[in-house]
């Protein structure tokens, strides 16, 4: 297992370096003058020269890349061209907030989706199964911006019971909870799209497990159905969910740009989107790197968790 983890970490580092190189090349392939994009149409040649000199954009690309790598190794992602702030600061402000918002919605989706999937598996092929699946697939297939706007129209504009946005400024993660009313709608919207996925994975996995010999044995031994489901079935059926959770780590880091835009929640998604629109290379590179790291770590965590929960896997790779 240890060798397996070391090998996976080695692969992860190689992937991250590859992501850095690819991203650096891609963002610099973007046509046009970065200085003009940031300073605006009235930027004089003198101001463009100062800008390029300040941010090292007048140096050869390989030199820029080398310096970027050196700085990243020292934890310095550079300065945002637009915000004028260290990229690490911008990310540090937004990432925890996204983690909390998307984390809460993921937990909510799990709380609803896992029992729902189990319920469907137990009642597979019945009208109840079809109704539950149909309901969640309908919500899943509806665009999240539409769901968000509908919920706002009903609960905020019509009934005035829920806040449609964060208006008080969010200085910290704690600030999110200063106005819990504003958290409700974004959490619901983000959860809706995850519930269908969780419940269907859970359903498929549970149906597969229900056909296994150990379940039949347990039933033959006269174990109560509730115990069979919670002690035997649930643990094994949860394995695919762990994989999904691991793979959803990049989503937490990358933010949820649509929900952030609609609910006035300045997070990673908007940061990345706005940086792409404004040629803010350091932010694009920093955010991509963080998302790349999260993807690799998510996979690694899922693999390790898989091994911890299922000894067969641990033994196979060890």
């Amino acid at each position: 297992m240890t060798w397996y983890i070391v090998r996976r970490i080695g692969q992860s580092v190689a992937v991250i370096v590859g992501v850095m190189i690819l991203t650096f090349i891609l963002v610099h392939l973007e046509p046009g003058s970065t200085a003009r994009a940031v300073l605006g149409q009235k930027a004089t040649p003198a101001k463009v020269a100062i800008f390029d000199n300040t941010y090292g954009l007048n140096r050869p690309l390989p030199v820029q890349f080398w310096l970027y790598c050196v700085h990243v190794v020292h934890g310095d992602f550079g300065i945002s061209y637009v915000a004028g702030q260290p990229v690490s600061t911008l990310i540090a402000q937004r990432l925890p907030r996204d983690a909390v918002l998307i984390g809460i919605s993921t937990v909510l989706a799990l709380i609803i989706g896992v029992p729902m999937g189990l319920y469907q598996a137990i009642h597979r092929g019945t009208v109840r199964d079809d109704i539950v699946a149909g309901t969640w697939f309908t919500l899943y297939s509806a665009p999240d911006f539409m769901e968000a706007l509908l919920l706002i129209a009903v609960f905020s504009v019509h009934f005035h019971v829920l806040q449609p946005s964060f208006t008080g400024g969010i200085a910290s993660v704690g600030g999110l909870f200063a106005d819990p009313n504003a958290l409700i709608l974004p959490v619901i919207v983000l959860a809706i799209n995850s519930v269908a996925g969780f419940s269907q994975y859970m359903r498929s996995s549970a149906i597969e497990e229900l056909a296994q010999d150990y379940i039949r044995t347990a039933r033959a031994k006269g174990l109560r159905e509730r115990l069979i489901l919670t002690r035997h079935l649930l643990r094994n059926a949860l394995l695919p969910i762990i994989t999904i959770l691991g793979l959803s780590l990049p989503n937490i880091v990358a933010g949820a740009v649509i929900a952030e835009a609609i609910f006035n929640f300045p997070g990673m998604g908007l940061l990345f989107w706005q940086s792409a629109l404004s040629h803010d290379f350091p932010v694009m590179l920093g955010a991509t790197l963080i998302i790349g790291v999260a993807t690799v770590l998510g996979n690694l965590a899922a693999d390790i968790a898989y091994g911890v929960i299922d000894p067969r896997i641990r033994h196979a790779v060890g």
Partner: protein
Amino acid sequence: MSRTHRIAGAAAALALATLVAACGGGSSGPIGGGSVVKGQKIKGGTVTIAEVGASPNDIFPLGPATNSNGYNADLTLGLWPPLVYSGDGAQSIPNPQESLYSSLKYSDGDKVITIVLKPWKWSDGVPITSRDFTFAYNLLKVNYNDWFNYVAGLFPVDVAKVITPNAHTVVLDLTRSYNPEFYTDNVLATIPLLPQHAWDKTSAAGKVGNYDETTAGAKAVWNFLQGQGSDMATFATNPLWKVVYGPWKLAAFQSSGYYAWVPNKNYSGPDKPVLSEAIWTPFTTDTSEMDTLRSGTSLDVASVPLNDVRQIPALKAEGYSVAQVAAPGVAEILPNFYAPVAGLLLRQLYIRQAMEYLINRKQIVQKAFAGYADPGNGAVPVAYGQQWDSPLEKAGGPYPYDPAKAIALLKAHGWKVVPGGTDTCIRPGTAADECGAGITAGEPLTFQLLFGSGTESYNEQNAAIQSTESLGGIKLTLKSEPFNTLVSTTGTCNAQSHPASICDDWQLQQYGYNGYLMDPSGAGQFNTDANGNYGGYSSPEMNKLIDATEYGSSNAAFFAYEDYAARQLPLLWLPNAATVFVYKSNLAGVTPLNPFSGLYNPEVWYYTKPAS
């Protein structure tokens, strides 16, 4: 000499541009209008102002050359207003009551300016003196290239010397004469005074000295203040930024753009805040702002994107009043006089005239901007003020919508006109009745119009222009790109920069509007090789007329320039969208908005309760 607009106004204009950028549809109302609020004045209260996309990131009032964030001016104007306060209500004139000067005299052929300061005080009780002016001047003299507002040739390099005969008098000896109106409105209105007694130091722990009096010291102080000015985490706590002379002090700031002002209790000016707090809360998108307004929450003042003005009745039902203010600037289609082939066509005045005759500006105002726009009759907005609007502009400009005249013009210059199709040149040559220099037989009259994507009003406007131009056989192909892509991939084209890829790739551009300061001078936009003259327009007569407005002293010079520009069409004039906004109906003093000083002036606002 290259000129461009100065930053305070440009910043306000930029903020305004951002506000109007996504505008479209709705009912119309008077420019600067709003309801009259009646009732008893309430002392205190908090006002919350919503702004879309607003995220200031630098608090030092002399921002660096690499920072073009217009919202920084919104943040700092209430703390350190410039020497000359721009705008009296919505009027494009200085406001002497709010300004720091008690008198401003031009002498020696308008080459010497004597400024007498009012006996006002900094928020820490120290008197404001002429030393505070020389402190700002000394810093700029050494560091002007790193100042975003610096315009080549203007302040501080146009100052031969500064004399301070006493603590309240500053004498500026300029290197040449200027039109006093131009210099006051567009130069002195961009320069704040800085507290020498608190800021003349090179480190946070260092002592205050006279470092600014040497070149090395001025550089060190500048670098220190710039560094502190960009540290967003300490905007509200840094002792430097506690020393202000405006009506407000910064009480809270978050990097998201949320900030709060509280009254400067030692403010010496006439309008002492009645409110106890003004809060700016940023919105990521128009949608989230509109949803919040309609949900009956605590927003007191907010801009309304034109795309959403049809929701105004619903906002009124939520207890809001509605008003609008003209954007200080000119909207246009920018022709590239150096584009291959198309440039040869666009150099012909008669072609530009025909194109302008084929733009139905009145229809665009109503359909694309729902009535919330200046008609765009020429180089100066009609609503700009009596002193700036010539009779020609007020009468509708030289080229009102008239397809018949456009067709007649084209036919008279050797074009086969095919309404709904594409005109072709049938009489090449340079005679008066021929197509013009460089235009060959069979040349089609076609152009590509490049514009910023994402604004429905502009989509509607440009589709309308495409449609009406085709009535005269002028074929426009529309192409939209994200604004930043547009800005970064197209560049200024003139005799120096041509040929280059940034010149060759565009023919016509439409991207919003060019902001003006109080004096809507053409300097920097239409004179040859000016920084804002992106399309390479060049006319010795225009240069002469602009110079007269900038350096001469005749008030008639402005109208002469304005009418010449309107007729010459260095740009194709378009309607310019206004800013529409809503405010709580029990909030008084909000209108008229001042577009020259950050739009919002909460120091004159107050809540009312119904008279009992």
